[in-house]
């Protein structure tokens, strides 16, 4: 079962929820837990779990390399490149690897066989165990633009394909509602959206629900974090839209303190462990019950 944890608005508590759920369910033996930190631009899960990272792999995309001896400067490579990562002027070919998406069209369409492809590094994947949690994260290199190839590779690399039992895969998603979130959510069985009950939280949650439910056709449930801090807009919206609120985490200074110190909140405040077990059962029921 693959559960993606997203939000729309940043800072609502995705990492809080992902690490808490992973820790409680794994430690209690309720599931074989795989936790993937898909926020490859700013991954934080590892700060709370201190995994021992034993496996590493570089992520790269293939960018063009021009053999000027064979090149006829016909310009076809530049024509077929949707991203203008190549320019042919007079007897020169310029490549702009930062714009390249690695699609391979230039190499494939070159009539003179003058283009080969070489890897350009984008980031790194790392995996290892944190207690009983099977942990993996992606780390996009600073200065790179595209997170999606790193996320895609991370999921291919770390999500178990053939596995006994039905492992629980938790995906901690990046903030927002754009392509890196889509890449994370795609192929999941459930989207758990963490929000805060404020106008900002509501505004971004509405988009996230549309994304998960409308575009990606995933079942959706909401977790309200810092419940009590703002207004009732989120509650009203969820009622109208028929989105179940599966857990409310109250505004609790102890959580903020544990979190800011880098401590795992469910260890610091064990009374939150049972609500997270309940949340897991709720999600299982939602998936089992179908849409």
């Amino acid at each position: 079962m693959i559960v993606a944890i997203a939000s729309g608005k940043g800072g609502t508590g995705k990492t809080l929820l992902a690490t808490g759920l992973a820790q409680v369910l794994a430690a209690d033996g309720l599931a074989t837990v795989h936790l993937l930190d898909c926020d490859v631009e700013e991954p934080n899960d590892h700060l709370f779990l201190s995994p021992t990272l034993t496996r590493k792999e570089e992520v790269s995309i293939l960018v063009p390399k021009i053999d000027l001896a064979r090149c006829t400067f016909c310009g076809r490579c530049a024509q077929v490149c949707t991203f203008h990562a190549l320019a042919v002027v007079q007897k020169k070919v310029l490549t702009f690897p930062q714009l390249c998406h690695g699609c391979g069209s230039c190499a494939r369409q070159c009539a003179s066989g003058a283009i080969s492809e070489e890897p350009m590094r984008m980031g790194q994947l790392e995996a290892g165990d944190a207690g009983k949690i099977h942990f993996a994260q992606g780390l996009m290199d600073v200065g790179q633009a595209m997170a999606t190839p790193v996320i895609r590779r991370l999921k291919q690399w770390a999500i178990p394909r053939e596995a006994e039992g039905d492992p629980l895969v938790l995906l901690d998603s990046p903030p927002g509602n754009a392509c890196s979130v889509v890449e994370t959510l795609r192929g999941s069985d459930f989207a758990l959206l963490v929000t805060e009950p404020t106008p900002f939280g509501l505004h971004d949650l509405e988009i996230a629900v549309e994304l998960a439910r409308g575009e990606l056709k995933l079942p959706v449930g909401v977790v309200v974090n810092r419940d009590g801090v703002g207004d009732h807009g989120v509650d009203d919206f969820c009622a109208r839209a028929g989105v179940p609120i599966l857990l409310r985490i109250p505004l609790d200074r102890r959580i903020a303190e544990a979190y800011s110190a880098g401590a795992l909140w469910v260890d610091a405040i064990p009374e939150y462990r049972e609500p997270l077990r309940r949340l897991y059962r709720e999600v299982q029921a939602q998936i089992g019950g179908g849409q």
Partner: protein
Amino acid sequence: MRIVVTANDPDLEAPVNPLFGRCELFMFVDTDTMAFEAAENPAIGSAHGAGIQAAQFIVEQGAQAVLTGQVGPNAFDVLQAAQVSVYTLPNGATVRQAVEAFLEGRLQKTNVANGPQGGGHGGRSASARP
């Protein structure tokens, strides 16, 4: 010689558009006859590599010099590879003023890109291989 000025309107009295890859039009001017023609910037709708596409277009159209406000690093690389000179203008000049200033030798040639990287993808261009 054939020069090009970045603009928004096909009108000599209209201001230059400072942003090379994003201008609406290119005004090509033949400095010998002073005939000019306006062409729509094919890169205007494109987000990826607009500067590169714009640069390639004006090179293909035979421009030998560009009079504009800001040229980003990718576009600048293409223009430099094609030996097209770039002259930077202050904001607010009209197309006519730009051309006159060029003809009177009052414009400074730019040797480095002076605009930001656009399109969200940064400008680490690979130089042409030897």
